[in-house]
């Protein structure tokens, strides 16, 4: 009780002092102590990007998003396009290890090829961020879709649409060598295990190729005109699947679920036209922003590459007729490039 007076008096004194010095401080500004080390940590650093190929919505979107976020901080952004050639990609990663960029953003073609190389890179002091397709090596960060979840949610959609119908479904896989395809298939199997009434009449790989997907779907639909749903593994390929359904006059009767990066022309427009009934989108601009955020955090943290490891699985956006018209469900590549 007696001591109560002291802090009050001290506060008053502090206030008086502040009243005297305050204006002076406001004129000089207050230095935020952490922004300069942050800027220094980023300026002049090199971030290398190794996609499986450029020229498609996902990799172009990531590229544009990363560039937009990082270049203003003086980060040098270099690209090594593997152009669908696993060998060329492995060579690019190898040569990058000797060039020593600060961060490598890597899009794996499969689980094994780059795994050892990425481990070596982190040992050499390069942060490795893996996108969408992880490798067997767990690096500083993984940013990307959870393929098993995609498979599960697509199949759940198809199973629901099949209620009270023939319960016959078809699966159009991607390339057999791709882990994304195998993981998605696992998700499909997880759901089918709970629904023994569903009969898979065809499960074939179309090699991410729209023409092959169309050929397979046409044959399957002729054999099973009462098919109630199709689980497709990528929207770029399932344009062909959708074309076959449309030609058979079964649009709206066969529920077509697919997945992709959510680019407007490839996703929302096609959902609106009725070609796809469900498109699970792993929203590429959000992924790009998460990657950029991770790079900023890692570079400014002072952590040693390989000492911390974590994952950021993308929150999926299910695109259906209800939200296909909205501004936020899909993105435009042209906007991202601005």
């Amino acid at each position: 009780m007696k001591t109560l007076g002291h802090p009050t008096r001290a506060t008053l004194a502090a206030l008086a002092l502040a009243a005297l010095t305050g204006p002076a401080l406001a004129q000089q500004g207050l230095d935020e102590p952490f922004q300069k080390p942050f800027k220094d940590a980023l300026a002049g650093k090199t971030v290398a990007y190794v996609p499986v190929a450029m020229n498609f919505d996902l990799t172009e979107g990531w590229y544009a998003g990363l560039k937009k976020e990082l270049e203003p901080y003086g980060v040098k952004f270099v690209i090594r396009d593997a152009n669908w050639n696993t060998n060329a990609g492995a060579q690019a990663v190898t040569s990058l290890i000797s060039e020593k960029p600060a961060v490598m953003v890597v899009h794996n073609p499969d689980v094994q090829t780059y795994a050892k190389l990425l481990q070596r890179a982190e040992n050499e002091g390069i942060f490795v961020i893996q996108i969408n397709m992880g490798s067997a090596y767990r690096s500083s960060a993984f940013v990307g879709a959870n393929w098993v979840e995609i498979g599960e949610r697509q199949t759940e959609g198809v199973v629901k649409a099949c209620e009270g119908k023939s319960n016959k479904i078809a699966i159009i896989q991607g390339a057999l060598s791709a882990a994304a395809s195998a993981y998605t298939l696992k998700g499909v199997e997880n759901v089918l295990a709970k629904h023994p009434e569903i009969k898979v009449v065809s499960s074939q790989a179309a090699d991410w190729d729209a023409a092959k997907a169309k050929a397979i779907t046409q044959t399957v639909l002729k054999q099973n005109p009462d098919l109630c749903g199709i689980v497709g593994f990528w929207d770029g390929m399932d344009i062909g699947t959708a074309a076959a359904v449309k030609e058979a006059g079964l649009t709206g009767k066969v529920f077509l679920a697919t997945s992709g990066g959510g680019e407007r022309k490839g996703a929302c427009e096609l959902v609106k036209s009725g070609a796809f009934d469900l498109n699970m989108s792993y929203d590429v601009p959000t992924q790009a922003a998460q990657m950029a955020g991770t790079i900023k955090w890692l570079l400014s943290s002072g952590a040693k590459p390989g000492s911390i490891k974590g994952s950021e699985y993308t929150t999926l956006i299910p695109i259906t007729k209800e939200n296909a018209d909205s501004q936020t469900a899909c993105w435009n590549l042209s906007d991202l490039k601005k």
Partner: protein
Amino acid sequence: MKRFRFNQQEIVFAVFALLFLVFSIFLNGFLTTENMLTLLQNVAVLGILGLAMAIVVIGRGIDISLIAALAVPPGLVLQMVQNGHSLPFSLLIALLLTIAFGLVNGWLIAYAEVPSLFATLATGLLLAGLGQAVLFQLDVVQWSRGMDGFERLGQGTIFGIPTSIVMFAIACIVVAFLLRQTRWGAYIYAIGDNPYAARVTGIPSRPIIVLQYVIAALIGCFAGLVMAASVNSMPTRVFNSTLIYDVILVVVLGGIGLSGGRGGVLNVIIGTLLIGTMLNGMTIMDISYAGQNLIKGVVLLLAVITDSFLNPRNEETAQQGDI
């Protein structure tokens, strides 16, 4: 005494007939009109490309750049329409690009005398690279509103027959007419059989070679338009696929020898039918991808081995350029 001999064309036809018979008996739902139409529809584009390749191979050449001609000019049409140009104008530009491409191929082979394998390998890469680097924004060029109506080239039916089959039939008739009824066609056979003799006889062999490659590129572009219309987009990445091997396979399997001068449209049709029957049957049986490749390989090997048993090659029968 003349011994009875099968040639490759007949062997492949026999394999096709056998396969067809087996599938018809054992495979439920194979021998239906609808499935037959699907079968043909699925290989129509391959067949059209086979025709283009046949023209070049009969003239003792090979055109590896065919897939670039399939992918890039039609892709350009879709891209230009997407960017707001009119469809006829875009088609005209693509047509000019295709003709220019054929002329470059032909000039390199006929006048610069670069072997066709290397010349077309390089020009194909060049055209595909040009497409990727300059012309297209994305690998898969999407259909846009301005293209509406054009999809009828690859979708829907004409008198109950799927359009792509009709397109294949039209291409067959045009190419058969060119090869069998015109003087140019006869020249192509003459050059393929013996280019030196053809030149000595006074056949304008160089312009005819150029013509072959221009026609092949044009047919390739046509196949691409049918394909784009059929899947509502142009996946230009098809250039990196193994489609070109399938095309060569159709041609060689059908019995058009790579040594040139022999074969015709019928051979392409037979080769296409065999591939189509195999693919269709295996899809109905839901055979895995790896299994399909295995079966494809075995059937093709069988056809080739049977041929070399029945028609052994030696120094006399082998020709220069035989692969």
